[in-house]
C-alpha cells in the first residue's frame, strides 16, 4: 500500500493557519475553564459530571496524548502516515509551514524546521547528551537564516504551500521510516530531527557537519533516551507488573516432590531466588551458548555442563540467565522449579581435608536427594588443579557417573585445558565455549548499564563515549574480553570525570583516561607529538650516529601510521635490521620505544637463540594443554601496544620462523589454547647479524648501504624464506661503525652522563681527548662494534665517580675533568 502524508490543516491559507492556531488552543483552554466552572461553581448534575470527565480527558491530553499519534505504528495499519505522528510532531510541522509562508520563501522551510526543533526539550536532551551547546547552535542558525538567498519569488500562496511540502516531504517520510526502524510506536520529534540531518539540503548539511551534528552522534542518543525511559523498566527488571509479587523462594516445588536442603541453603547462593527477585538474569548476546544449553535441556539429560571462557566473558551471566529461564518456566517441564545453587568449594575448606570431603559429600547428597537442585561450581579448575582441593574430584566424579546429579562448572580456557588433560572432563561434561561479546552486543549491553551508571553516579554518559570505550578495549585491551574490558574503562573514566566535576562523560574523556591508564596515544597527534613526528630523524640522531638509511626508513613508516594512513592488516610495521654486531640495531629499537611508545619498558624482547628447537614453539605461543604459557603471546595480550624486538632472528628454528608469517601478514595468531592474539598495534623489529662480513667488506670498498641493499636482499634469501622476507615492511641495513662514529657515540654517552649528573648532583663532567681516546680504545672492537663502550664508561668513569659522590667530594655547581696519563685522572673543581 502506497503511503501518503495527509494533514489537511497544512493546506489552509496563511491567514486561516493563524486563525486556526489561535482558536484551537483558545478553545481547549475555554473547555477546561468551562469544565472547572461546571465542577466548582455549578456543582449540579449533570454539569459536575461532565466537568469532571472533561478535566480528566485534558489531564490525559497534557501528560499522555500529546506524545501519541492517532494510530500505533506497531499494531495499526494506515495509509496516511500522519496518523502515526505524535500530536506535538504534527503541531511542529504545522508551525513550520505557517512560519515559512510568512517569509514567502519555501527554501527556508528546512531551516525553520531545525529552528523549531531546537526549541523542544526532547531535542535539547539529545544534543546535551552528545555535549553540544543548543544555545550556540541556535545562535549560529539564526545568523544564517536571513543570509539564505531566495531561490525564486512565489506569489501564489497555494503553490508556495505545495513547494514547502515538496521541500519537507523526504524528511517527513524518512522520519516515518526511522520510527519503524527503531520499533517506536509513534513518529516522534527525535525521528523528525534525525530525518532532517539525513535528508537536509546542502547548506544545512554543511551546518550540521560544522557543528558535529551527525547521524552517528544523534542516532545512539535517541535510542539511549528511549531505552532510558522504557528498557530499564521492561527488560532489566523481569518483574515489572504491579501484580507480580515475589514469593519466598522455597526448596519445595509446586507438586511437593522435593526434599529440604538445609546445608545447601546455608552455604550456597540460590541463583533462582535472585532471578525471581529480578536481580539477575538479564543477558545480551551469547545466543549460540544459550541455544546449546536449551538443546541440552530439551534432550532431557542431566545438565552437566562445563562453561569455558575467559574471565569476564559472561560465563556466570549465562548461568544467571538459565536461572531466570527456570523461574519463568521457559525450560522443559523436567526443570520446572529447579534451583541453581552456586557454591564456591574453595571457601568450604577450613584446613581439615577430612571435614572438607565430608562437607562436599553433604552437598552432593543433598543435591541428589532434593530432586530439584542444579549445582554451579564457578572456576572449577581452581579446585581440580589444587593439591588441597583436588582429592574431592573422585567423589564428585562418582556422583556424576551415577547420573543423578546436575552440575554446571565454569573454567578459564587454560584452566580447562590443564584440567582436561588430567581428568578427561570433555567425556563427562558437555563443553560449551563462551565467546566474548562482539562490539555491537557490548555497546548495547554497556548502553543499558550506562543508564544505571547515570543514576548511580549522577553523570550523563554520551553514547559515543560507550562506543569509543568498546572500540578501544577491543583494539588494545585484548587480555580481557568484552564487555569487561570496556566496562572497566568506562568506570575509570566516570571516576576521572567526577573528580574534575564534569557533567557529561564524553568520548574525549574516555580517550584521555585510556591514554593515562595504558600510555597509548589515541587522540590525533598533538602539537608536541606532531613535532616529534616531523623531526623524527633528528630526534633519533640525537641517540643514533649516522645509519641514515635505517633511520629514514623507520621514520617514514611511523609517520604514515600516526597520520592515520594506517595499514589495513598486520602490525604497525615489521623491520628486519641487518648488520654487524654493536652498530646500533638494538639501540635504534630502544630509541623508537622511548620516543614513540613512551619508554623502553614497552619493549617485548626475545632472544631467538632460545628458540632453536621445534619444541621451543610452545615457549613462544604456549602449549595446547595450557601447561606452558607462551612468552610472546602472553606479553602481547597484556601489552598490545608495544615494540617487539626479536634478537638474532635467523637463529630460530625454521618452523618457528614460519609462525611469524601470519603475524606479519594478518596481524594476529592463535596461541596454544586458541586465543587470538592481536599484533596490529605492535612494531616488530627483527635483528640479524647475517651477512655482516659481506656488508663490512662492501662498505670498505666504498659502496653505500643503498647500493648494496638489493644484493643483500638476494643474499638474505639463503638465510630466510622468500615468503618471510617479502612480508617485512623494510629490510634495513646497518653498516659497520667507523672510529669517527664511535667518537660521536662516546660524545652522546658523555652527554647523557652529564645530563644525569646535572639533574641529580648539579655538577658536570668533561673528558679530555686523552681520556676519550682511551675509552674508545677500550670500548670499541672492530668485531663487536660499540657494544663494550657503555660498559667501559661505566667501569672507568662512573665507578670512580660514584666513590667521589659517596665521599661527598663533589659539590653543587662543581665540575669533574677526566684525563688519561697511564691511568684515568679525575680533577674535581
Amino acid at each position, binding site marked *: 500500500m502506497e503511503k501518503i502524508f495527509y494533514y489537511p490543516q497544512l493546506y489552509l491559507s496563511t491567514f486561516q493557519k493563524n486563525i486556526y492556531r489561535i*482558536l484551537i488552543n483558545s478553545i481547549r483552554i475555554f473547555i477546561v475553564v468551562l469544565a472547572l466552572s461546571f465542577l466548582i461553581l455549578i456543582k449540579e448534575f449533570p454539569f*459536575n459530571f461532565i466537568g469532571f470527565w472533561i478535566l*480528566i480527558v485534558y489531564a490525559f491530553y497534557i501528560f499522555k496524548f500529546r506524545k501519541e499519534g492517532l494510530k500505533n505504528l506497531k499494531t495499526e495499519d494506515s495509509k496516511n502516515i500522519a496518523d502515526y505522528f505524535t500530536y506535538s510532531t504534527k503541531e511542529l510541522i504545522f508551525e513550520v509551514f505557517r512560519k515559512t509562508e510568512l517569509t514567502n520563501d519555501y527554501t527556508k522551510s528546512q531551516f525553520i524546521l531545525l529552528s523549531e526543533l531546537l526549541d523542544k526539550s526532547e531535542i535539547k536532551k539529545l544534543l546535551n547528551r552528545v555535549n553540544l551547546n543548543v544555545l550556540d547552535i541556535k545562535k549560529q542558525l539564526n545568523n544564517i537564516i536571513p543570509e539564505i538567498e531566495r531561490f525564486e519569488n512565489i506569489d501564489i500562496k497555494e503553490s508556495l504551500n505545495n513547494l514547502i511540502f515538496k521541500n519537507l516531504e523526504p524528511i517527513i517520510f524518512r522520519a516515518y521510516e526511522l520510527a519503524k526502524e527503531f520499533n517506536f510506536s509513534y513518529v516522534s520529534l527525535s525521528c523528525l530531527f534525525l530525518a532532517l540531518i539525513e535528508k537536509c539540503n546542502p547548506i544545512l548539511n554543511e551546518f550540521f557537519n560544522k557543528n558535529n551534528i551527525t547521524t552517528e552522534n544523534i542516532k545512539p542518543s535517541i535510542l539511549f533516551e528511549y531505552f532510558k525511559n522504557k528498557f530499564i523498566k521492561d527488560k532489566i527488571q523481569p518483574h515489572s507488573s504491579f501484580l507480580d509479587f515475589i514469593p519466598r523462594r522455597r526448596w519445595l516445588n*509446586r507438586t*511437593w516432590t522435593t526434599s529440604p536442603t538445609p546445608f545447601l541453603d546455608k552455604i550456597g547462593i540460590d541463583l533462582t531466588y535472585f532471578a525471581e527477585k529480578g536481580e539477575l538474569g538479564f543477558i545480551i548476546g551469547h545466543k549460540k551458548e544459550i541455544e546449546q544449553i536449551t538443546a541440552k535441556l530439551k534432550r532431557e539429560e542431566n545438565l552437566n555442563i562445563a562453561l569455558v571462557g575467559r574471565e569476564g566473558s559472561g560465563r556466570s551471566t549465562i548461568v544467571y540467565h538459565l536461572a531466570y529461564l527456570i523461574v519463568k518456566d521457559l525450560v522443559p517441564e523436567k526443570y520446572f522449579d529447579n534451583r541453581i545453587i552456586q557454591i564456591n568449594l574453595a571457601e568450604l575448606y577450613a584446613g581439615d581435608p577430612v571435614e572438607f570431603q565430608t562437607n562436599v559429600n553433604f552437598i552432593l547428597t543433598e543435591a541428589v536427594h532434593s530432586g530439584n537442585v542444579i549445582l554451579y561450581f564457578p572456576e572449577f579448575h581452581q579446585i581440580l588443579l589444587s593439591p588441597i582441593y583436588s582429592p574431592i574430584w573422585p567423589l564428585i566424579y562418582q556422583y556424576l557417573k551415577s547420573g543423578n546429579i546436575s552440575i554446571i562448572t565454569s573454567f578459564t580456557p587454560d584452566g580447562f585445558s590443564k584440567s582436561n588433560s588430567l581428568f578427561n572432563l570433555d567425556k563427562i561434561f558437555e563443553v560449551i565455549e563462551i565467546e566474548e561479546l562482539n562490539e555491537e552486543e557490548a555497546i548495547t549491553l554497556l548502553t543499558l548499564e550506562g543508564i544505571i551508571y547515570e543514576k548511580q553516579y549522577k553523570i550523563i554518559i554520551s553514547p559515543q563515549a560507550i562506543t569509543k570505550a568498546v572500540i578501544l578495549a577491543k583494539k588494545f585491551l585484548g587480555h580481557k574480553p568484552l564487555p569487561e574490558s570496556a566496562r572497566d574503562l568506562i568506570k575509570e573514566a566516570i571516576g576521572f570525570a567526577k573528580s574534575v566535576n564534569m557533567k557529561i562523560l564524553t568520548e574525549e574523556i574516555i580517550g584521555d583516561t585510556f591514554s593515562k591508564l595504558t600510555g597509548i596515544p589515541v587522540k590525533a597527534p598533538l602539537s608536541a607529538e606532531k613535532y616529534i613526528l616531523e623531526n623524527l630523524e633528528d630526534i633519533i640522531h640525537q641517540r643514533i650516529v649516522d645509519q641514515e638509511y635505517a633511520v629514514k626508513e623507520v621514520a617514514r613508516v611511523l609517520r604514515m601510521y600516526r597520520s592515520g594512513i594506517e595499514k589495513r592488516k598486520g602490525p604497525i610495521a615489521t623491520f628486519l635490521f641487518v648488520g654487524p654486531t654493536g652498530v646500533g640495531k638494538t639501540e635504534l629499537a630502544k630509541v623508537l620505544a622511548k620516543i614513540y611508545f613512551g619508554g623502553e619498558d614497552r619493549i617485548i624482547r626475545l632472544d631467538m637463540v632460545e628458540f632453536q628447537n621445534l619444541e621451543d614453539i610452545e615457549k613462544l605461543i604456549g602449549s595446547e594443554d595450557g601447561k606452558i604459557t607462551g612468552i610472546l603471546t602472553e606479553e602481547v595480550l597484556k601489552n598490545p601496544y608495544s615494540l617487539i624486538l626479536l634478537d638474532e632472528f635467523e637463529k630460530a628454528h625454521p618452523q618457528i620462523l614460519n609462525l611469524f608469517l601470519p603475524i606479519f601478514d594478518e596481524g594476529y595468531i592463535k596461541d596454544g589454547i586458541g586465543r587470538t592474539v592481536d599484533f596490529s598495534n605492535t612494531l616488530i623489529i627483527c635483528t640479524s647479524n647475517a651477512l655482516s662480513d659481506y656488508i663490512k667488506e662492501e662498505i670498505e670498498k666504498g659502496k653505500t648501504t643503498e647500493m648494496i641493499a638489493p644484493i643483500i636482499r638476494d643474499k638474505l634469501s639463503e638465510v630466510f624464506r622468500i615468503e618471510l622476507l617479502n612480508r617485512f615492511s623494510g629490510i634495513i641495513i646497518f653498516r659497520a661503525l667507523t672510529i669517527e662514529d664511535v667518537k660521536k657515540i662516546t660524545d652522546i654517552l658523555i652527554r647523557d652522563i652529564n645530563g644525569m649528573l646535572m639533574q641529580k648532583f648539579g655538577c658536570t663532567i668533561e673528558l679530555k681527548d686523552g681520556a676519550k681516546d682511551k675509552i674508545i680504545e677500550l670500548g670499541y672492537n672492530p668485531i663487536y662494534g660499540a657494544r663494550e663502550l657503555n660498559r667501559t664508561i661505566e667501569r672507568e668513569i662512573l665507578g670512580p665517580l660514584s666513590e667521589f659522590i659517596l665521599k661527598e667530594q663533589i659539590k653543587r655547581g662543581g665540575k669533574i675533568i677526566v684525563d688519561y696519563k697511564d691511568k684515568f685522572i679525575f680533577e674535581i673543581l
Partner: protein
Amino acid sequence: MVFFYIFEEILQDFYKFLRFWYKDSVKFIFDEYVKSFSIIEKNFSIRLNLKNFFKPLYGLRSIETYFYAIPFRIILIFISLILHILNTLIFLTILIFWCLLPFLSISLFKKT
C-alpha cells in the same frame, strides 16, 4: 474549513481518551490477568499436580509419604481451583467496574 478542523481536533482529544479507557486499559487488565493466572499456576499447578498425583511427598519413598500424597494433592488442586476462580472473579469485577466507571460516576455526582 478552519472550524471544521478545530472541531475534528477536539473530537480527537476525546476519541483518544475513549481509546485509552476502553481499549488500552482493557488490554492492560487482561494482560495482568494472564500474569496472575501464571503466578497461580507456578505455585499450585493443577496440571503438574495431576501428573504427579501418585508420587510421594518430599521425594521420600515411604508408606507415609505415599499415603499422604493423594489427599495433599487433592487439597493443592482444590486451592488452585479456588484461587483461579477468585482471580477470575476479581479481574472480571475490575474490568466491569473500569468499563462502567464513567457511567457509575453519574450516581456519585448526582448525590453530591
